[in-house]
């Protein structure tokens, strides 16, 4: 595999409330020899507020960053955040579909964006460019004995025309990675149901209902933890888990971990290196279960070796 | 209002089985089209002698359209393959005769594709309007 190298867009959340995601992404990338070069002086992608104002405006806010990537001489922008990804992909999609639109967007910008950059999620890089063979080579502490359900959220694969990644109704990229790092992945029917998105602040009840349904289904599936790839999903499911319990009358304590954190664990990084301790819901029990699983595996391997001799 | 757009002179050679039927279907479905085109019915697009196209363009046509059955769907099994081969050669040859190859188009429309026919006519007519009237040529054959 030739060395992979991309322009990296962390996004606003990954700078603050979702620092864990940024840190674990960079560490995992490092181990997998994926070079991530942070886009100099990147600005906010505009997220969902921008497109409620105007699509031209929203595309321009996103495209400022794409133009910088062009200037860097790179052809791919990689971001871990699906919300940012969606903003970039839609800008590229709309601009390439309609030349007039493209011109208008560029008239709002200091430096024009000439459509020479595509946007990908870091998950897509892991799944398609790095591949499960290369991931499995780095696994030294497989996550034996734990059930993890992957929660994709809305925007990673939808709408399919724009996202162009994985299956829009039954995505398997995270499933595959989780299996590759040794976890057991039970059937999970809420992979794609919306968590309530950005309405946490303004419409808390909506979020605690939707996120509550997701947690409930995850637990019914026998999950010990939920894997996520989105800072907003993480926030809704983890930070707001107590609000969910209060509003919905549940008593859930299920860790919500970034897929990159789980990979990092399997690559032998410590929980604190991966900032797992920075989450709201404690992962201690989950981590213990992994250790136990590992020990049991070692024991049974030893036994089988000695019985062979 | 701006002045009326002058009609272009466009000839269409349509095979009886597919495209002529497609144009009928468009009619039956009332799919509105520009009025510039005059259709000449031929049994098969393979009947269209490239010379017809040249003669039409030389004697004053602004555009010529040939439309036949989709590949593999020819009523005469392979007529449209012949047509395609000949007309592709023609298209490459037109510039040497001083004719803009964009004045000639070859396409496929089946009998059920009324909507497609509407699009083909609309697009081609637009294309010819954009090119403007064909430059006057010295007429050799007539007179």
């Amino acid at each position, binding site marked *: 595999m030739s060395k992979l190298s991309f322009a990296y867009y962390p996004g606003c959340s990954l700078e603050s409330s979702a620092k864990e995601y940024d840190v674990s992404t960079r560490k995992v990338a490092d181990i997998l020899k994926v070079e991530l070069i942070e886009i100099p002086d990147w600005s906010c992608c505009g997220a969902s507020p921008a497109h409620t104002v105007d699509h031209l405006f929203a595309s321009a806010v996103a495209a400022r960053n794409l133009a910088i990537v062009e200037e860097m001489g790179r052809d791919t922008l990689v971001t871990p955040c699906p919300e940012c990804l969606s903003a970039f992909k839609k800008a590229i999609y709309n601009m390439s579909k309609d030349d007039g639109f493209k011109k208008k967007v560029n008239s709002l910008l200091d430096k024009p964006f000439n459509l020479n950059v595509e946007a990908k999620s870091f998950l897509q890089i892991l799944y398609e460019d790095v591949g499960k063979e290369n991931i499995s080579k780095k696994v030294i502490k497989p996550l034996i004995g734990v059930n993890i359900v992957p929660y994709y959220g809305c925007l990673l694969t939808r709408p399919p025309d724009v996202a162009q990644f994985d299956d829009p109704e039954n995505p398997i990229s995270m499933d595959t990675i989780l299996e590759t790092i040794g976890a057991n992945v039970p059937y999970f029917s809420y992979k794609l149901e919306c968590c309530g998105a950005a309405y946490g602040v303004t419409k808390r009840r909506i979020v605690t209902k939707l996120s509550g349904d997701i947690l409930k289904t995850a637990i019914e599936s026998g999950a010990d933890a939920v894997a996520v790839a989105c800072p907003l999903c993480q926030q809704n499911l983890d930070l707001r888990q107590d609000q969910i319990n209060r509003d919905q009358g549940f008593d859930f304590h299920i860790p919500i971990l970034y897929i990159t954190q789980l990979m990092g664990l399997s690559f032998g990084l410590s929980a604190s290196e991966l900032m797992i301790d920075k989450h709201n819901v404690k992962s201690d029990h989950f981590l213990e279960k992994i250790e136990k699983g590992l020990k049991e595996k070692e024991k049974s391997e030893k036994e089988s070796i000695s019985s062979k001799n | 209002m701006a002045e009326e757009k002058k009609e272009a002179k466009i000839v269409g050679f349509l095979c009886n089985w597919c495209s002529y039927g497609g144009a009928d279907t468009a009619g039956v479905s009332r799919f509105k089209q520009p009025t510039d085109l005059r259709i000449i019915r031929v049994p098969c697009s393979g009947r269209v002698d490239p010379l017809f196209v040249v003669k039409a363009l030389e004697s004053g046509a602004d555009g010529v359209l040939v439309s036949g059955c989709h590949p593999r769907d020819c009523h005469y*099994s392979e007529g449209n393959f012949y047509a395609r081969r000949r007309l592709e050669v023609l298209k490459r040859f037109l510039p040497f005769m001083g004719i803009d190859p964009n004045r000639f188009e070859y396409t496929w429309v089946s009998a059920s594709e009324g909507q497609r026919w509407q699009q083909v006519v609309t697009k081609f007519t637009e294309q010819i309007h954009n090119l403007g009237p064909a430059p006057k040529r010295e007429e050799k054959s007539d007179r």
Partner: protein
Amino acid sequence: MRIGVFICHCGSNIAGTVDVKKVAEEAKRFPHVVYSTDYMYTCSEPGQLEIQEAIKKEKLDGVVVASCSPRMHENTFRRTVEKAGLNRYMFEMANIREHVSWVGVDKEANTKKAIDLVRMAVAKVTLNQPLFPKSFKVNKNVLVIGGGVAGMQAALDCADGGLKVILVEKNPSIGGKMAKLDKTFPTIDCSICILGPKMVDVGQHENIKLYTYSEIEEISGYVGNYEVKIRKKATYVDWTKCTGCGLCMEKCPSKKAFDPFNEGIAPTTAINIPFPQAIPKKAKIDPNYCRQFIKGKCGVCAKICPVQAIDYEMQDEIVTEKVGAIIVATGYSLFDHTKIKEYGAGKYLDVITSIQYERLLNASGPTSGHILRPSDNKEPKTIVFVACVGSRDKSLGVPYCSNFCCMYIAKQAILTKDHIPDSQSYVFYMDIRAPGKGYEEFVRRAQEEYGVKYIRGRVSRIFKRGDKMVVRGSDTLLGTQVELEADLVVLATGAIAEEGARELAEKLRISYDPYGFYIESHPKLRPVETNTAGVFLAGACQGPKDIPASVGQGSAAASKVLSLFSKDLLESDPQIAHVNEMLCVDCKKCIQTCPYGAIEEKKTPMGKIVASVIETVCQGCGLCTATCPPGAIQLQQFTDNQLLAEVKAFFHA
């Protein structure tokens, strides 16, 4: 020449957007035109009489009618002029309805266009020549392709009418989809009970020659004289010996073979007779599952067969038959629901298709007619039917309605209640399409008497919760989201074109629509004819249709063949190529080009070698004409001169 021009109003269809009077006036000034008029409905009896009178009074020797498409009325008017003593080819039509009045809104531009088209038609008719058809003998055998209910009906009607029928069916048994069904709407009679006797009749009729497990390899010729090559696929059992005793099936150790008849819900043996009522009732080996073929050892069936019918070395065989007409009755296929990811893409065992459900309901099916759901063989209590799965769905490329699923859903829901009295069925639907006789009443009965709950809304997603299937849909009448926990979900998968339909159409030289269904000559007036003379359509191959309609079309196609064959001689179309022997330089280009091998060389009385057209073989495509360097071979009625005259008439007004 004396030419008459007749401009039709078609009520307001033409006159509404074309100034027909002006067109008629203008036409008077065209060369050779001596008479021009307009009329309200030219194709009506008085309209035709007016043409005939004008021919006589004005001594016309050429007629142009400007009206609808020649595909609609060319033959009508040809007969009209013929009755007045004119040769039928001294006639031309200008299409000012489909190509003018219906597609343009600007009356002035339309009128100008109509005038141009009439001028072009006049220019052409001036160069027309009287043509005279030749007669040729007809082979009165008929080929029926497809042995579903439509094809069987067509075959029986033809055979009863005294024709020899060759019936080709690609499966090992005839019967088509109907043989798989349990009961049929709207009368709920047992499908195989009414179909079985018909199948036996087909099998035993002295005028029907049956080729099952066979496919069309090649078709050549033309109406009255087709030659058909049929591939008899190897069954590895000598059917002249096999008695259908079924011993081999009992002993065959390979018991996991895919069973297409049961739609894969239960396996079968590698050697099998597809179902008890099969016609012919003969065994066949599926080499994909037979151990003799896979591992090279077994041979149990060969040992056990009392009549030594097994032949592992059997090869496909090609036979040739000659027929005069062909009825295509190849039916339909069902939409592949594994393409619909939000419904589980076929991964959930308890989400099945409607045709699989027919097999579950069927007393001779794998569950002996007990409804047991596939995952755990338990009897389901809550059954959800989903309508329009792979129908009326642009995103899946199937925007059309499949015609019969609304009805069979009602039927299956009623049967469900009969089988499991304490069950509850739900139907998610968009519209209920039940326009046949007794159909609406049938659907009402399902709701009123059988308590089937109909929910107006589409299903968005199906997923598993415990051992239930959760169906999430909407009730648009309420304006809300709804969810049901079902034991079994039945998807009413839509009808799509039979696989291989397009390839067969290409062999037959008939057309198909964008979805692969065959196109009839005219949707209202020639519903079972195709544009290829001598080829007729019956049943669902033309578009989804239920059994009554399929059978009706089978009979209609048969009667078309019977009337075609009522004459011993057919007339050939004289619009064929003709060689000017003076001009021909024997370059042979035309001979190489003709797709029908209709051109040969001959020696003229002067000893010159020239090309010569075999009149009965030429189909009139004109490929040769466009190929001939000196312009010696001309397609009559479409000669270079005629077409160029049209072109010129447009530019030199």
